[in-house]
């Protein structure tokens, strides 16, 4: 089984120029894992069906086991235990990346994450490093149905000792993974399943309208806007999985509704570090996410922003999320429940009308 890595050699770290075709997220992430395993002999990857020739349900681990056979291990169907074993590796001085095949099943590892991995970093009275990343392929829009389509980020917000992250097409996956493993605390990394199939952005270029830059380090913020503009009618804040839908909404809002939006995408969802972007929040603020309504990540963003923006805000912060509903399988029912580009556009338009 030959290794197929679309970014060229596993070492290829230099971004292509803006004009060239950028890799798809799945290949970009796969290449990042290759590089990481190669450069750090302490890194293990565990997960269901991750070995070659299968290479994982979403092929993110393709080629890894062929190169690093003793550190890339397919586990039985035991989500709790594969996370626990990752924590054990981490305690013993290794670094562990574990894959939950569908993030929906991370519920089975909730105890290991909340009550062991996260707590161990502080409950023994001194800092105990637990370098562990729990990778969670996430989200709907693929018709997989109620138990294979969820975005469960919100349930992990506010666990002491645990940080939450999400892949975005702006942030470099390899730098992010390296950074997360350096934190010494367990991280849950959400990865939008549709994003896997999309191309990443590089060199500050999004498209003909929008440009981006990065602030706040490898897990900081991507700031997307129109070159030269500083005052926006609306600031959208959204995790990486929402990027394409947010961009499409921004384009329509600009061209058809004459509303100028900026988009801010954090790689680290929690703890929130608002400092790098506080100055960039102008106009109406709207937090967009894929999770269902109620107890959302957006509510956390909003509660952190209200006191900081109190004098500037002219209306309540808007929250856009999926409906308070299971995610149906049939495409026409699923799209009625999930956040689409129209949901975002409508929310902004209504708030500003």
């Amino acid at each position: 089984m030959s290794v197929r890595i679309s970014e060229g050699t596993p070492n290829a770290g230099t971004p292509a120029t803006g004009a060239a075709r950028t890799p798809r997220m799945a290949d970009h992430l796969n290449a990042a894992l290759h590089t990481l395993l190669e450069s750090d002999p302490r890194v293990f990857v565990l997960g269901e069906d991750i070995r070659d020739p299968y290479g994982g349900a979403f092929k993110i681990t393709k080629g890894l086991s062929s190169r690093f056979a003793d550190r890339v291990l397919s586990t039985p169907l035991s989500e709790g235990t594969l996370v626990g074993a990752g924590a054990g590796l981490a305690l013993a001085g290794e670094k562990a990346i574990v894959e939950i095949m569908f993030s929906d099943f991370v519920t089975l590892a909730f105890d290991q994450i909340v009550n062991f991995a996260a707590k161990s970093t502080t409950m023994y009275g001194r800092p105990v490093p637990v370098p562990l990343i729990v990778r969670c392929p996430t989200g709907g829009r693929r018709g997989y149905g109620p138990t294979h389509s969820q975005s469960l980020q919100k349930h992990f917000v506010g666990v002491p000792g645990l940080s939450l992250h999400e892949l975005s097409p702006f942030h470099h996956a390899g730098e992010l993974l390296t950074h997360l493993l350096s934190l010494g605390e367990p991280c849950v990394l959400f990865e939008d399943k549709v994003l896997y199939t999309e191309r990443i952005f590089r060199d500050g270029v999004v498209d003909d309208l929008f440009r981006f830059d990065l602030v706040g380090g490898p897990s900081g913020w991507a700031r997307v806007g129109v070159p030269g503009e500083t005052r926006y009618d609306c600031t959208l804040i959204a995790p990486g999985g929402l990027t394409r839908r947010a961009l499409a909404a921004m384009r329509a809002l600009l061209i058809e509704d004459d509303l100028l939006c900026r988009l801010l995408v954090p790689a680290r969802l929690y703890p929130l570090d608002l400092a790098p972007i506080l100055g960039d929040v102008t106009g109406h603020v709207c937090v967009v996410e894929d999770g269902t309504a109620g107890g959302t990540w957006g509510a956390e963003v909003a509660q952190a922003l209200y006191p900081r923006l109190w004098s500037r805000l002219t209306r309540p912060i808007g929250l856009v999320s999926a409906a308070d509903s299971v995610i149906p399988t049939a495409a026409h029912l699923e799209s009625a429940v999930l956040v689409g580009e129209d949901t975002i556009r409508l929310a902004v338009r209504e708030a500003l009308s």
Partner: protein
Amino acid sequence: MTSTILDRDTVPLSPPSGEDLDRLLLIRHFELTLLRLFGEGRLNGTTHTCLGQEYVPVALRPLLDDDDYVFSNHRGHGHFLARHDEPHGLLAEIMGREGALCAGVGGSQHIYHRRFLSTGVQGESMPVAAGVALSLKRAGDGGLACVHIGDGTWGEGAVYEALNLAALWRLPLLVVVEHNGIAQSTPTTAQMSGTIAARAAAFGAAHHRTDSIDLNLIRLELAEPVRRVREEGRPTVIEFVTRRVGPHSKGDDTRSAEELTRVRAADWYVRYAAAFPEVFAAADEAQRLRMARITDEVAARPPSVWRAAP
């Protein structure tokens, strides 16, 4: 009780009833239809067909009563169709069309119809079935809860927690394991240490293993164990040694060509066709046609409506 029947691939098959053959072939053509529709881009999402394993639920059919509960998993179309002759409703569910069993919300993996319930998280049904079995036991009508799981699902701790509970409380729980030697892409040897027989025994559950594909023979073997589940509240694990002839879901089969040849040669479809060529061919054609009609009919329906949407 643990008993093992030796490989019967070479033993002559007993003649199936017309009804049995029809049911087997309906399921086969249902599954083939799904793969075809996916190939044509007419279905979205995912599916897991039971190609090669259709005979398991068909064999169990007369052993289960209407009042029994059946818990199914991701590979559940055969389980459903063996129990309910409602291919229209199931196809509509998978295609998201009017007349869908669950309004198109559940799709392939999440079906609840009368006392049939499936869900997509492996192992999760075992504790639920134990609870249902507790209610059935209290009702005292001899009902049982049957749970279909695969060999890979024995990786999940929930399986053991539930077996323990069922044995302690003497619950009428029948666990049907379809041991097809693989879980998604991982062979059983890479994910299960020890044996299913020993695991059942360790939790005080009875165990019966069969590698027959002969419906009549299987029923003979299982009648007594199933009776004891009902009458003695004896949790029992029935292990079918079986084969997944198709991919895990769609086009994701990484097994070697040799392995696939071996597996396909043992397919009940091939063996029944060889043993009873005429009746088989006629039934096969009939079910193929039936399924084609059903598909056309369902495909022409409007999208499902979810009346109970929250």
